[in-house]
C-alpha cells in the first residue's frame, strides 16, 4: 500500500527533537503522546481513498518539508506592532502564540476577573493535573491529525471557568505563524473547560505574518459542564499558502448549550472538523459557519454531530461563498445513538457559487439508531440572482455595490447567530473586508481570468 512507503520524515524529525524536551512532563502525558505517535505512524496521513477525505487531498503535507520554527536565539521575531491590528475590541484578554509557542510579551492577561483562568498549557501542566480532560475527547485513534497534534504539540491555551462564573467578555486566543521563507509547522493545542453553570466565549484566531508557507494542525477540546453556556469562534484568516487543519471536539454534559462559529476567510487548504458529542440529556448545540473562498482556496468543513443521550437538539447552519476556482466541501454527518430518543437534529448548507469554475461538494449523512427522532437536512447551491442584482441596480446602486450587498446579506445570516457583540463585530469587520475585496476583484474579472490561464495551477485534488 502507498501509505507503507510514506516517510513523513519532517514529522519524525520534529518528534525526535521534542522527545528530549518532554522528560519533565507528567508520566500520563508522556504515555499519551507515545501512544498517539504510534497511532500516527500506523495510520499515516489520510488519502482521498478514505471516505472522510474524499474531497480533500493532503498529499502536499507529506511533500512539503515543514519544520518547527527555530527557537529564537534573540528576541521574538514578531513585535507588538506586527499584531496591533489583530485585536478584538472588548475582549477580556489576549493570549498570543507565535509559531506554536507562547509569547508572554505580546499577550495581555492583566486583571482577569474571578472565576476564570487563562494560561498557556505548558505552564498550566507544571502545577495542575489536567489528566481528567486533556486528550480525553479528541479521537487520536480514528484521526491521524489528532494523533499528530497529540504527539507534537508544544504549547497552547487552557481556558477554565469555575462553577457558576459568568464571563461577559470573550477570551481571544491568537495563533500567529510567521515564517521567513522556510515552511513552518505548528500543532497548537487548546483545552477549554467550562464548569457547571458557567458562561464563557472563546475566539481562536489564526493569522499569518508574511507570505511564507505554514501548516497549522490544531486540536481544541471543549468541555461544557452541566448547564454551562459556551461559545467558540474559529477564525481562519491565514495567507493563501497556508494549510490549516483544525479539530474542535465538544463534550457536552447535561443541559449544556454550546455554540460553535467557524469563519473561514483565508488559508489555501483548510479542513475544519467540528465534532460535538451531546453526552448529557437535554444538551443543545448550534454549529454555525461561513466559508468564503476565491482563487485556488480549498475549504473543507467536516461536521460530525453525535447525539448520545435523549432530548438533545443540534442545529447546523453553514453558508459558503465561492468565487474563481475556489472549492468548498460541506460534509455533515449526524449520528443518533440507540438511547438518544427525542433527538432533534437539523442541518442546512447553503452555497453561492460566483464563477463557473467554483465548486462545492455537499454531503449530508444520517446514521440513526434510535426510533423517536426528528432529523432534517437540506442543501442549496445557487448563484447571485440576476433578478435581485437588477432590482438593486434599478434603484441606483452600482453593480459592485449591489453585488457586495447581496453577498453581505447572505453572510449576515451567519452573523445574526453570533450572540457575543465584541466577537460578532470583530468577525463582521473581517467578513466585510473579505467580501469587499472579492467584489472589487469581480469587477476586474475579465482581466483576472486571462491572467489565471497562464498560472501554473493545480487544484488540491490533483496534487500528488
Amino acid at each position: 500500500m502507498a501509505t507503507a512507503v510514506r516517510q513523513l520524515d519532517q514529522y519524525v524529525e520534529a518528534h525526535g527533537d521534542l522527545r528530549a524536551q518532554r522528560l519533565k512532563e507528567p508520566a500520563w502525558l508522556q504515555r499519551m503522546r507515545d501512544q498517539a505517535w504510534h497511532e500516527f505512524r500506523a495510520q499515516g496521513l489520510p488519502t482521498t481513498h478514505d471516505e472522510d477525505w474524499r474531497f480533500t487531498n493532503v498529499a502536499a503535507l507529506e511533500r512539503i518539508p515543514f519544520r518547527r520554527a527555530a527557537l529564537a536565539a534573540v528576541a521574538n521575531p514578531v513585535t507588538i506592532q506586527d499584531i496591533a491590528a489583530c485585536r478584538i475590541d472588548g475582549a477580556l484578554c489576549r493570549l498570543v502564540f507565535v509559531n506554536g509557542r507562547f509569547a508572554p510579551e505580546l499577550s495581555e492577561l492583566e486583571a482577569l476577573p474571578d472565576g476564570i483562568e487563562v494560561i498557556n498549557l505548558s505552564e498550566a501542566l507544571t502545577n495542575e493535573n489536567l489528566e481528567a480532560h486533556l486528550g480525553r475527547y479528541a479521537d487520536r485513534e480514528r484521526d491521524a491529525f489528532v494523533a499528530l497534534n497529540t504527539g507534537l504539540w508544544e504549547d497552547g491555551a487552557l481556558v477554565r471557568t469555575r462553577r457558576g462564573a459568568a464571563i461577559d467578555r470573550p477570551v481571544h486566543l491568537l495563533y500567529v505563524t510567521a515564517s521567513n521563507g522556510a515552511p513552518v509547522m505548528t500543532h497548537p493545542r487548546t483545552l477549554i473547560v467550562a464548569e457547571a453553570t458557567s458562561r464563557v466565549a472563546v475566539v481562536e484566531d489564526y493569522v499569518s505574518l508574511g507570505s511564507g508557507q505554514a501548516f497549522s494542525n490544531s486540536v481544541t477540546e471543549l468541555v461544557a459542564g452541566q448547564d454551562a453556556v459556551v461559545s467558540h469562534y474559529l477564525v481562519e484568516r491565514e495567507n493563501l499558502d497556508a494549510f490549516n487543519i483544525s479539530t474542535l471536539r465538544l463534550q457536552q454534559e447535561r443541559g449544556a448549550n454550546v455554540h460553535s462559529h467557524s469563519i473561514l476567510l483565508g488559508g489555501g487548504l483548510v479542513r475544519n472538523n467540528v465534532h460535538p458529542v451531546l453526552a448529557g440529556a437535554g444538551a443543545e448545540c448550534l454549529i454555525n459557519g461561513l466559508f468564503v473562498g476565491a482563487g485556488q482556496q480549498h475549504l473543507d468543513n467536516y461536521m460530525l454531530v453525535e447525539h448520545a443521550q435523549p432530548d438533545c437538539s443540534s442545529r447546523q447552519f453553514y453558508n459558503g461563498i465561492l468565487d474563481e476556482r475556489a472549492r468548498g466541501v460541506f460534509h455533515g454527518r449526524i449520528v443518533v445513538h440507540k438511547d438518544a430518543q427525542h433527538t432533534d437534529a437539523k442541518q442546512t448548507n447553503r452555497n453561492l457559487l460566483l464563477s463557473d469554475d467554483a465548486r462545492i461538494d455537499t454531503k449530508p449523512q444520517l446514521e440513526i439508531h434510535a426510533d423517536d427522532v426528528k432529523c432534517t437536512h437540506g442543501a442549496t447551491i445557487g448563484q447571485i440572482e440576476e433578478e435581485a442584482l437588477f432590482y438593486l441596480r434599478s434603484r441606483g446602486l452600482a453593480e459592485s455595490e449591489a453585488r457586495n450587498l447581496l453577498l453581505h446579506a447572505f453572510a449576515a445570516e451567519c452573523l445574526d447567530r453570533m450572540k457575543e457583540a465584541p466577537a460578532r463585530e470583530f468577525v463582521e469587520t473581517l467578513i466585510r473586508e473579505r467580501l469587499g475585496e472579492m467584489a472589487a476583484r469581480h469587477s476586474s474579472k475579465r482581466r483576472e481570468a486571462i491572467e489565471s490561464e497562464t498560472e501554473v495551477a493545480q487544484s488540491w485534488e490533483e496534487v500528488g
Partner: protein
Amino acid sequence: MSLLEIKNLHASVDGHEILKGVDLTMNPGEVHSIMGPNGSGKSTLAAVLARRESFEVTAGEALYDGKDLLAMKPEDAACEGVFLAFQYPVEIPGIGNAYFLRSAMNAIRKYRGQDELDAMDFLPLFREKVKLLEMDGALMNRSLNEGFSGGEKKRNEILQMAMLQPKLAILDETDSGLDIDALRIVAQGVNALRSPERSFLVITHYQRLLNYITPHFVHVLVDGKIVRSGGPELALELEEKGYGWAEPDQVPA
C-alpha cells in the same frame, strides 16, 4: 423639450423579437398608459427603459431628458431619475427595507453631487411615506420584501418611488393581483406624486386602475407595436370591446 422620446424601438430576448418598432413621446407632467394583451411586449418595454441587460435593443432609440437612455446602465438610469415599479418585486433576505432605501437614496444623491442623508434626515421622511402607503412600520424593519403579501410588495414599490422622487416613473402592472383597498392605496400614492415635472408610464392589462389614476393618453400595444393611441376614453372602449378590436387587421383603413 419632451421627457421621453422613443423612436422605432426594436428589442429581443434570446433571439425573439418582442418590440417591433415602438414610437412614444412623453412630455413632463403627463401620465401615459400602455394597455395590451398578454405577451404584447408591455413588460419588455418597461424593462428596456429601466435598462435590464437581458433585453437586447436591435434598432431604434430612446432619448430621456435629451440623453441616450439606451446607453445607460440600470443604476445610471435610476440616478438620472428613471424608476421602475416591478410587476414582481424581488425578496432579498438579509437586506433591511429601510437600510436598502437609504443606500439607494444616497447612491442617487452622490451621483447628483448632493450630501448623503444620515439616519436622522432619513427617518422622518421615511415614516411620512410609510404612513402615506398605509404600511405596517414593523414590516419595514424586516428584510426587503421578505414575507410581504402581494399587496404589501406593490405598496413597497410605490413607497420606494415616493422616497426616490423620480422624473419618469414606470409602473409595470402594479395593479395586477391587488384587492380594492390595496389598489386605492397604491393609486393614492401615485396621485400624491403627480406634478408638472414628473411623468408616469402606467402599464396595465385592465382599465380598472385608470379609474383611480386618470391618464392623459392611452396607447394600445399589440404584438410589439403601438396600434392605437387616444385619450382616457380609449381605455373604456377597450374594456368594452376587447383587444381584438384594436388589432391592426380589425382597424378600419
